[in-house]
């Protein structure tokens, strides 16, 4: 069990982790998902007491990491597989870690067997391939047979066989009742491994939900439209109750509409269509949309000021406060990625 409460980390001006609260529970793999620079590694370093939080607390098994009597028996972490002295042999690296926590030396051979490094146990770690280094890092994490495991981007740079091995390992560790917390910037990876997701973007938690719910809530199908008259069509479609986004390739995505209705609107206004097709949801897209990577369509680039009573953030945060109340300062924060349909361009507002 990992519990973060109001966890915040600032590096000078930069807020890497911003008032983050979440709980990672035992028994399943929890994915920690976010684009590059979202604050995943910083959060994990704070869990391990490597970085000091600017504000907030984080506990493992109910105590601060530095308060654990035998930390390696409670938590196994792989943050950076290269975080070891390359001049030391794999065996000695593990042996010294075992000694530091009073773990019997025979456990070193056990974990070396477990990760398949027995034959190179007496070789210097600097000669290891990426996959071998990763396995050694995982051996170190498993050394104390801990109930909580944490992996930061464990599949980075691994070949398909290595990826499969790690995935299987993480799932079996979780099936044994352990808490498994794995970060990734790839939604597709998480969809195959995790049951629960904590999504982080620009230091804030964007979602804390099961993978199934996340898909249901975020991966909505849309209609893909190509037209030489997109400038006309966009506002027309947006005027209906549909959400319209511009794809990087220049086509439109219309959410909440079916192809026939979109075609009708085009025909009514004499707009020529070059493509009109339904698109099934992709998790990667759902994730990208949630983390705010897609460009929003603003009908000629005019940003629409959010009406206070309809603003997604103020309604969510104030939870039924009178509309007259001034929105909290963060309600209009430009840092907040657009997370809800309300945040997009609407014809009715223009």
């Amino acid at each position: 069990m990992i519990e973060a409460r109001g966890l915040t980390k600032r590096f000078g001006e930069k807020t890497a982790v911003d008032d983050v609260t979440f709980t990672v529970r035992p028994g399943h793999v929890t994915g920690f998902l976010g684009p590059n620079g979202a604050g995943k590694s910083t959060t994990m370093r704070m869990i391990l007491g490597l970085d000091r939080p600017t504000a907030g607390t984080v506990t493992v098994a109910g105590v601060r990491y530095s308060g654990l009597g035998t930390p390696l028996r409670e938590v196994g972490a792989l943050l950076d597989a290269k975080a070891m002295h390359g001049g030391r042999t794999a065996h000695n690296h593990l042996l010294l870690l075992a000694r530091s926590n009073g773990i019997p030396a025979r456990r070193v051979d056990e974990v070396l067997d477990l990760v398949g490094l027995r034959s190179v146990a007496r070789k210097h770690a600097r000669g290891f391939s990426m996959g071998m280094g990763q396995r050694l890092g995982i051996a170190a994490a498993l050394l104390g047979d801990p109930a909580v495991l944490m992996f930061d981007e464990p599949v980075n740079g691994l070949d398909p066989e290595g990826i499969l091995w790690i995935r299987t390992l993480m799932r079996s560790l979780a099936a044994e009742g352990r808490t498994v917390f794995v970060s990734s910037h790839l939604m597709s990876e998480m969809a195959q491994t995790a049951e629960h997701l904590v999504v982080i973007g620009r230091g804030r938690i964007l979602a804390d939900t099961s993978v199934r719910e996340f898909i249901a809530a975020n991966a909505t199908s849309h209609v893909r439209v190509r037209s030489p008259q997109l400038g006309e069509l966009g506002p027309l479609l947006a005027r209906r109750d549909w959400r319209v986004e511009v794809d990087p390739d220049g086509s439109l995505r219309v959410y909440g509409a079916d192809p026939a209705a979109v075609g009708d609107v085009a025909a009514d206004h004499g707009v020529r269509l070059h493509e009109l097709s339904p698109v099934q949801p992709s998790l990667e897209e759902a994730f990208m949309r949630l983390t705010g990577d897609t460009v929003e369509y603003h009908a000629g680039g005019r940003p629409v000021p959010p009406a206070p009573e309809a603003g997604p953030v103020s309604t969510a945060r104030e939870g039924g406060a009178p509309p007259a109340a001034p929105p909290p300062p963060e309600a209009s924060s430009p840092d907040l990625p657009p997370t809800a349909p309300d945040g997009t361009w609407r014809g009715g507002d223009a």
Partner: protein
Amino acid sequence: MTAGPEDAGRPPGEGASTHRDVAAEDGAGRKRAEHRPASFADAVAAEWIKIRTVRSTFWTLLAGLVVTIGLSCLLAWVFVSAYDRLGARDRLRFDPTAYGLAGINFGMVAFGVLGVLVVTGEYATGMIRTSLTAVPRRGRLFAAKALVLGGVVLVVGEIVSFAAYFLSQLIFADRHLDAGLGEDGVLRAVIGGGLYLTLIALLALAIGTLLRHTAGAVTTVLGLLFVLPIIGSFLPGDLGRTVRKVLPAGAGGAIMNTRPSEESLSPWAGLGVFTLYTVVLLVAALLAFQRRDA
């Protein structure tokens, strides 16, 4: 914990581990065994494995040994060869013990480099994060590092100091210039040579911890030990003499004198001043180590 008669009926394995008896269940129903908390001794044991399983330890210690003993003997031989041409004043002021330990003033660099590497090696490789994950109590980790480094350098430093002393006295014995261990202050000077090397290694550990960078820390150690005395030598008169006495190398080196000298503090006062520098830097390093992100 031997199997008594009452254990006879149990299946093999049961009762073999004391852990089972106090096993508790965690939130998910996994059996969790209780363990004795890791101690300072565990951290020391790990640091001991660390220091003996990297090659840099062997090479720096070997370099320190060769340079210290080699230069001590070489300088002794040069002195003996030139003895006939020396004036009465020089002969009178000759301190065979200090002269025989002169190599320590150069060999100390290697021990300083070891002190730096013990910690900057961890920062350079990222090992420090793994170390702190295993031993998150930073004061404990730092103390264990200092203890193991200090212990290793103390043993090797004393060996080096005694070897330099004995070999150089063999050379001096040619001219009946040698000083016996029983003579006034000689044993103190020779033991002090090893203590001085130990303090240098610890001072270097502190600087390495503060700077977290090998080249920068080694340069700083060299600056403190070699460049400061050069600057001091340009200061005029009494002020210059006083400053030179309390500069790190001047103060620490005093422990190896067996004849009083106007140019240096008394042996124990000098080593005391050097110890003070070391302790101040160690405290600063510990505070920085505890406060900073790893």
